[in-house]
């Protein structure tokens, strides 16, 4: 068994033993339940209102599909945020905490490479986040489908992008955790996330108001931290055209290009590489 897979399995087992998995599962189910109960009443109300007020069945159907999509996107947005929080929490303490406590010393003095430790943890967290995103987003999509028979377009691509965003945030956190203490790492990650979020908003409003400067500010922010562009591409893939034309944090008006998405993946690889380099160089 390679050192990377030993560390990855250890990371998984740690999440189970320290009840991180359980907490994620319970809160994830609660999240999907609340979404389901809320949308159950909302969808029912919308169906009744549109049937009563719309001139034709066709317009009623369109309006119902639009509003269902809008609510689903809202749910997915919240799920994305929770996945990002999970990504930051998983990554923040891992290297920093083990360096601080000295746990890393007996691991790092084994005949393995330091890169194996970082990559093994990354792989373990990537697996954990996959399960979490599947639970949250899969729950939202499934609940919506069961209640209304609606399923969004480009579902797998959209969920894949949402998952990639959480993995990107986790990778950035891991890099910071190899250099800074856990608390500082968590603080910086949420700061960066907020930075990307505001940049995304500026770009969206720029697009709505057709202000080129605002759009450029958004693009520059995305180049610095491309996390939010992954969500916006995911939203673009899954939302209906009418929903997309309204500016809101849950939807997208200015669409990140495939080039930007490619950049985000490249960014992630570079950050992971830097994480390995920092960890290789530092004193433990």
């Amino acid at each position, binding site marked *: 068994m390679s050192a990377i897979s030993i560390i990855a399995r250890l990371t998984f087992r740690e999440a189970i033993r320290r009840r991180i998995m359980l907490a994620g599962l319970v809160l994830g189910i609660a999240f999907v339940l609340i979404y389901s109960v809320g949308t159950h009443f909302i969808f029912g109300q919308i169906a009744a209102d549109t049937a009563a007020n719309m001139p034709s069945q066709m317009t009623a159907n369109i309006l119902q599909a639009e509003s269902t999509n809008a609510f689903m996107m809202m749910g997915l947005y919240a799920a994305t945020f929770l996945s990002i929080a999970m990504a930051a929490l998983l990554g923040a303490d891992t290297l920093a905490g083990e360096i601080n406590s*000295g746990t890393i010393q*007996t691991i790092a003095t084994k005949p393995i490479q330091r890169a194996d430790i970082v990559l093994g943890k990354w792989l373990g967290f990537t697996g954990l986040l996959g399960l979490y995103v599947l639970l949250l987003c899969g729950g939202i999509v499934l609940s919506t489908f069961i209640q209304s028979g609606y399923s969004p377009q480009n579902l797998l691509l959209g969920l894949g992008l949402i998952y990639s965003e959480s993995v990107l945030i986790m990778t950035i956190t891991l890099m910071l955790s190899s250099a800074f203490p856990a608390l500082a790492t968590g603080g910086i990650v949420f700061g960066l996330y907020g930075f990307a979020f505001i940049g995304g908003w500026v770009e969206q409003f720029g697009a709505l108001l057709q202000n080129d400067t605002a759009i450029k500010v958004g693009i520059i922010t995305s180049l610095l931290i491309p996390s939010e562009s992954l969500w916006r591409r995911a939203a673009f893939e899954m939302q209906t055209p009418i929903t997309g034309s309204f500016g809101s944090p849950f939807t997208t008006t200015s669409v990140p290009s495939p080039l930007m998405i490619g950049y985000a993946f490249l960014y992630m690889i570079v950050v992971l590489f830097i994480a390995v380099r920092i960890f290789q160089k530092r*004193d433990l």
Partner: protein
Amino acid sequence: MADAIETHLLRKVFGDYAAVKGLTLQVQQGEVFGFLGPNGAGKTTSMKMLLGLIAPTSGEASLLGKPIGDREAMRRVGFLPEHFRFQEWLTADEFLLLHGQLLGMKKDDLQQRRDELLERVGLTPFRNKQLRTFSKGMLQRVGLAQALLNRPALVFLDEPTSGLDPVGRRLVRDVIREVSAQGTSVFLNSHLLSEIEVTCDRVAFIQHGEVVRVLDLASLSSDQTSVTIRVSNLAAESLNGLSQWGREIQMDGEFVHMIIASETVLPEVTRYLVAQNAEVYSITPNRMSLEDIFIETVGKDGGL
């Protein structure tokens, strides 16, 4: 055969503070080597450099004939860190399996070795308990087992008896003797001088990140014995007569202190005093302890 450890002017600077100034030493194969020094002398930093945890600022070092950090060498090295913390959510069994896997041990060999070591450190009844439920002494024991999994050619023990009760300390001491008898070199970092004194073949005194003295402990017991004689009615010329057996003779009330070459002269000294009509109440030889040498070497202030 290559030395177990060889360093040449190993140096580590943190900012503008030199934690280790220039460490030069050799540890031979099969030797139990004590690393002694006051707090903050650079003992742990030195050990971490040898283990590849900390990159030296300058200097050279090799373990088992390979440059430090070499993975082939690390396969044959064991390490018990100071105040160590482990994955406390693992059971003792899982913990040892994890470290054995990281050492690249074969499954059968690892399981056999794990059982053997759990038994040796007395943790077999607790093997399925998570480490979070372990006392400090139990953690130290499982840590020691971890350090010996791969039957290392060289094992580093950083303060292995800290936090242990007398029974645990005896266990560590016995285990050190056993592995040493099997040919393992032991590098023991401790400030418990009595521990070092009974386990080590040689010691290095380190102060301000430099080796200030290397001492062969086998020679310690024979030379430099001081003796205290409680005696009354001893004439001044009789006192001077003692100089034929010893030196640095001092009289302090009814106590006479002197340094003799060997305990074998004591019966002669006794006969002499009796012949001089002195009243002898007691004769107590005091072997010069490692503690005396330690204080003599690093100074009473501990080199602060």
